[in-house]
């Protein structure tokens, strides 16, 4: 690569970025690790007590369970639906229009998405007209209206995950669709001429080609889901067994003013994400090596 700097000129370009990264990311992260070993007001050293509490208290165990549920269901559906859409939309002429529709929720905030879906799930007793789409459909088919957000522990969690899937499927679709269109058409045609049916073409030609893209978006989705905060905060604020790690951390911080436990929860979240940081850095190095 070209050497364009003389002496220390590069610092002039880097200094503002290094300053902000240091002040807002590196130093606070180190400080949070330190605080996680201190008490609620950060004045008494308590050793690993905050961690012990985090790993044994019932509300925290619920958040771990919910984050695992989010990880499995959210990731499966966003990536799965994204893949399905990428493949089937390639076969219709109004592809661009439908893609815009699926992709649109990506542009709006989780708060707005939360309001939209609270309205979809809106519940009223059977005697009143239903104004939420979901309960109107249930009642229309002869069922009883359900207050979905209090149906613990599975239905309400799945209802929140559905909001996340609604937002993020478009992201997976766009990336997978770009990768899908990069598959040489002759490969698929050759398989068809050899007598493969559509499912075999998909399994033996399409999937192997998309493997690295699928791995990449799966890890991206898992990282997003571990940090999921806004949807839960807006829809239930963690009530009725729907809490997740990030929302719990926020509540420990602002509702209970327990900075020690809040820091320990943040560190646990960080540790869960470390493998993905390593993965990203490795992928980046491999990419740099071929430049």
């Amino acid at each position, binding site marked *: 690569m070209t050497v364009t700097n003389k002496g220390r000129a590069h610092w002039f370009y880097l200094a503002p970025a290094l300053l902000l990264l240091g002040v807002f990311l590196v130093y606070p992260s180190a400080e949070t690790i330190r605080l996680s070993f201190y008490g609620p007001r950060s004045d008494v050293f308590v050793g690993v007590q905050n961690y012990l509490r985090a790993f044994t208290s019932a509300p925290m165990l619920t958040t771990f369970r919910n984050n695992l549920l989010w990880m499995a269901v959210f990731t499966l559906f966003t990536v799965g639906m994204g893949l399905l859409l990428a493949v089937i939309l390639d076969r219709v002429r109004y592809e661009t229009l439908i893609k815009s529709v*699926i992709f649109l929720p990506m542009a709006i905030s989780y708060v707005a998405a939360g309001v939209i879906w609270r309205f979809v799930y809106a519940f009223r007793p059977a005697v009143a007209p239903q104004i939420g789409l979901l309960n109107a459909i249930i009642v229309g088919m002869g069922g009883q209206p359900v207050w979905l957000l209090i149906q613990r522990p599975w239905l309400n969690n799945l209802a929140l995950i559905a909001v996340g899937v609604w937002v993020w499927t478009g992201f997976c679709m766009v990336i997978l669709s770009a990768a899908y269109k990069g598959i040489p058409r002759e490969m698929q045609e050759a398989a068809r001429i050899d007598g493969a049916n559509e499912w075999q073409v998909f399994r033996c030609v399409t999937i192997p080609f998309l493997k690295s893209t699928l791995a990449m978006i799966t890890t991206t989705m898992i990282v997003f889901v571990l940090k999921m905060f806004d949807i839960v905060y807006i829809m239930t604020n963690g009530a009725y067994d729907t809490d997740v790690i990030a929302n719990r951390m926020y509540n420990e911080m602002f509702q209970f003013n327990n900075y020690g436990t809040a820091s320990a929860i943040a560190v646990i979240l960080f540790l869960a994400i470390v493998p993905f940081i390593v993965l990203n850095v490795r992928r980046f190095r491999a990419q740099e090596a071929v430049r």
Partner: protein
Amino acid sequence: MSASRKVRRVPLHLVVIVLALIWLSPSLGLLVSSFRPRQDLLASGWWTAVATPSEWGRFTTGNYQDVLLRQGMGRAFLNSFIITVPTTLITLTIAALAAYALSWMEFRGRQVLLMTVVGLIVIPLQMTLIPVLRMFNVLRLSGTFPGIWLAHAGYGLPLMIYLLRNFFGALPRELFESAYMDGATPFTAFLRLVLPLSVPVLASAAIFQFLWVWNDLLVALVYLGGYSEVAPLTLRLSLLVGSRGQDWHLLTSAAFVSMIVPMVVFFSLQRYFVRGILAGAVKG
């Protein structure tokens, strides 16, 4: 296309259209409901209003007047711009300078610095909230616009540097060699050569950062939480959900107010948005 092939494709079209309807109907319900008076909204579902032409005359902008003038969404709309526009400009300027040095300058520790930036992209913000909030309280930056500009800039930098550096680094080397022959300095090469050539990627990065900041709740909640006069749309809307959770005529119109700008950005600049996602994610 033969007739039998067309018939065989019917299920395909059905699946596509059903999926599109599932994706569209929640937002459509919000939009329609935001124009219905309170009593109508509670008397029947929004689909009834769409399907009954006699009800169309009852649509009103009253809910919007209410949320904009009386529920603070008007002020919040302004605040969202005051927060988002400077943040985007600050982040992009600082990221472009750093990305330039990281792509075209040779110095010790460059590789380590690059890896650190890549690693920082996915660090959870939760790791930073408490110390930064304490720092802000000492410096009296909580509840101020400069405070949240800087915090958002810090949080957005890793991804922005990464996106820009991927593009800057792929520019042909001969370009710089001939510029230096003509007596350009590294800084004039940056201003006159790199920036003009990078307009598409700068646009993608700007849209990313703009939408991220506009749609952010967590950062605003923590650093602007107790100060309603500086609250952006997301924060104001979340307060409304807490205090007026069943007043759907207010919630629907307030939610739509918060969505207008992202939707305009999305529809007018979708190309750049998609390009940004592909550059940020598909690389490697």
